[in-house]
């Protein structure tokens, strides 16, 4: 059976050029970039070159890039270290209700430690309002952590507008750009962000590597302590192969490629919506369909059909989509994002699937998927009658 992958917001396949670059690196070098001999210098050279590529991609300085194990570590580092560094200035933090768990869980822990967290609500499009943000911001606010775009519904947050508001405020501005990094042109200067998290495996790079952008003027203590790697900002021997692969993946994503992906993915959404409408399958989009969203994410509500039945049937037919995050026993957790958008009682919570496109998704894949989804939906509707 042919397997079609439409879960690129979860992870992406590595690009062949990334695999080639990593293979080459692993075959040629193995040195520790901190070593002061020839082997170490070889590794260090690769590290520097990669850092250069990545810094340029967001208009940052190379020494503002701290390599980490991924977005979870980047988010944990940003949130914990800012909160603890600036606790004397205030204990208030602003975030949104629809952040990734690697933002929400550290914040939950900080609440237990006495910090006060405001979770900005979202509307049915999955968007926050600046009026809510302005109302929440006060003299006690020390940290604002707001994602650039959402991983479940693809909605965008007004990062630049918030960055501008905070440019004259004590609060440090962190954004989780994990989903946005592969699709949007990001300029940390123009956006006025102090901290930005990313992950390589969401953009056709390897798993286990990411970075935290940290504005040079912002001094934070390291989250992981040990050796003096990353200028004492993150201990642990650098994952050179991963970093080289990450830089290669970044270099493939030119502004033109990103724009093309955005436009292709928008087209894929319309392709699916047209197929469902033509077949008379009842559906609604969770969020909105608009050109400047993160278009790789497409969240659909199929009224009356359970997420379990939809996702499992699709998988049995060879189509991988997401039904949400699973607990340790494999059963689906209700999405905190859909709950924030539609309320706890909405049938959308248990009748939706997330489809996410990637660099290797083709129009044929999408056509085959739409056909399979129509068939499954019609069969399930017939069964429930």
């Amino acid at each position, binding site marked *: 059976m042919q397997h079609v992958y439409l879960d690129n917001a979860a992870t992406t396949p590595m690009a062949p050029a990334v695999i080639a670059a990593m293979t080459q690196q692993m075959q040629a070098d193995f040195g520790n970039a901190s070593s002061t001999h020839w082997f170490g210098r070889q590794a260090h050279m690769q590290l520097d070159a990669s850092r250069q590529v990545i810094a340029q991609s967001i208009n940052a300085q190379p020494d503002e890039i701290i390599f980490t194990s991924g977005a979870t570590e980047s988010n944990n580092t940003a949130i914990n270290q800012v909160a603890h560094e600036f606790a004397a200035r205030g204990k208030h933090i602003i975030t949104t209700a629809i952040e990734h768990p690697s933002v929400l869980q550290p914040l939950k822990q900080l609440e237990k430690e006495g910090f006060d967290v405001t979770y900005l609500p979202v509307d049915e499009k999955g968007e926050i309002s600046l009026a809510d943000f302005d109302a929440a911001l006060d003299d006690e606010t020390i940290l604002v952590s707001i994602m650039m775009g959402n991983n479940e519904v693809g909605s965008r947050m007004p990062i630049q507008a918030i960055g501008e508001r905070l440019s004259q405020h004590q609060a440090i501005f962190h954004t989780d750009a994990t989903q946005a990094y592969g699709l949007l042109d990001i300029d940390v200067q123009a956006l006025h962000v102090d901290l930005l998290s990313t992950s390589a495996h969401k953009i056709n790079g390897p798993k286990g590597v990411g970075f935290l952008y940290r504005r040079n003027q912002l001094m934070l203590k390291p989250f992981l302590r040990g050796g003096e790697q990353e200028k004492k900002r993150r201990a642990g021997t650098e994952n050179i192969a991963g970093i080289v692969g990450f830089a290669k993946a970044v270099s493939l994503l030119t502004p033109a490629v990103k724009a093309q992906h955005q436009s292709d993915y928008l087209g894929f959404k319309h392709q699916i919506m047209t197929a469902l409408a033509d077949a008379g399958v009842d559906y609604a989009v969770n969020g909105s369909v608009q050109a400047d969203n993160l278009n790789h994410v497409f969240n659909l509500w199929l009224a009356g059909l*359970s997420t*379990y*039945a939809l996702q*499992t*049937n699709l*998988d*049995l037919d060879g189509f991988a989509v997401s039904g949400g995050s*699973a*607990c*340790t*026993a*494999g*059963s*689906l957790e209700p999405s905190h994002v859909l709950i924030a958008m539609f309320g706890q009682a909405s049938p959308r919570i248990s009748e939706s699937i997330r489809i996410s496109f990637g660099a290797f998704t083709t129009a044929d894949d999408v056509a085959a998927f739409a056909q399979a989804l129509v068939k499954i939906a019609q*069969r*399930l509707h017939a*069964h429930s009658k």
Partner: protein
Amino acid sequence: MSGGVDSSVTALLLKQQGYDVVGVFMKNWDDTDEYGVCTATEDYEDVAKVASEIGIPYYSINFEKEYWDRVFQYFLKEYKAGRTPNPDVMCNKEVKFKAFLDYAEELDADYIAMGHYAQTTTDENGIVHMLRGADGNKDQTYFLSQLSQDQLKKAMFPIGHLQKPQVRAIAAEYGLATAAKKDSTGICFIGERNFKQFLSTYLPAQPGQMMTTDGTVMGHHDGLMYYTIGQRSGLGIGGNSENSEPWFVVGKDLAKNVLYVGQGFNNPHLMATSLDASGMNFFTGQAPAAEFHCTAKFRYRQKDVGVTVKMNGDAAKIVFDEPVRAITPGQAVVLYNGNECYGGGTIEAAYNDAKVLQYV
């Protein structure tokens, strides 16, 4: 697939027979602790291992709501009424062979297969009959006694013809991760936790008097729901100089909140000669006759007793060939004819000749 050896071998055998098999784990109860770990985690991990070993896809489905509404509410209601419910019978009827069957049909499955020790056979008229599992010690038809003909037609029991040691040997032969896994015990959602403590978190306990049937107060009980007819342990009273036999629960009076106790395993108050049953279910869709003789079990793994069944609508009067000890209202009475299991009902009341026993 539960993550146990029985359903593991069930899946393996079906795969070997050429079926297109999909493994599904049911999560029916949420006991997630503060670390986000629930007891289902380990079982699901075992399902994942076994399914990968066999080469079949596996999924998890959540029936917590169905279980809560259709099994656990019944369970609490029965305890509140002073009876001893059988949640496994209800779970089979309402969850495993209803919600789960429905889900399997949504997945376009032709059959559901279970790792129960039970067998079926189809007669010339296309009617499916239920037979005991070949392993007399493990036979689980008792728990399946409320299934309908439609449910049975969709069900397969691929290990029903095997002995438990054979099932373990097959699992070991194919190197399945669950080959040596301990069998689960107790009611599934309570597991090996303290039953009394569990129940007390859902139902308020009303302590009261413990007395003999002639009114001698023997002490106090912690709440009638904690005691089952015929139970010995937990009474906290010993023998006396005249009679050194141990004490047993012989009755309950819910209205007066009194627990009756009596001495001797075969105390006359524990001995019944007949019972009333409700909700009589026959796998084939109807009773063999308005009145018939067969054998019966009144609790799981009990030896069969000869009985005469007199049907009255979907209720029945069941008269025993010889007195039976500790007939417990709320439990299932299940009927057999040789190797065939007819079906069963729920015990409502027990009698010693014409006298109703003070069980609730």
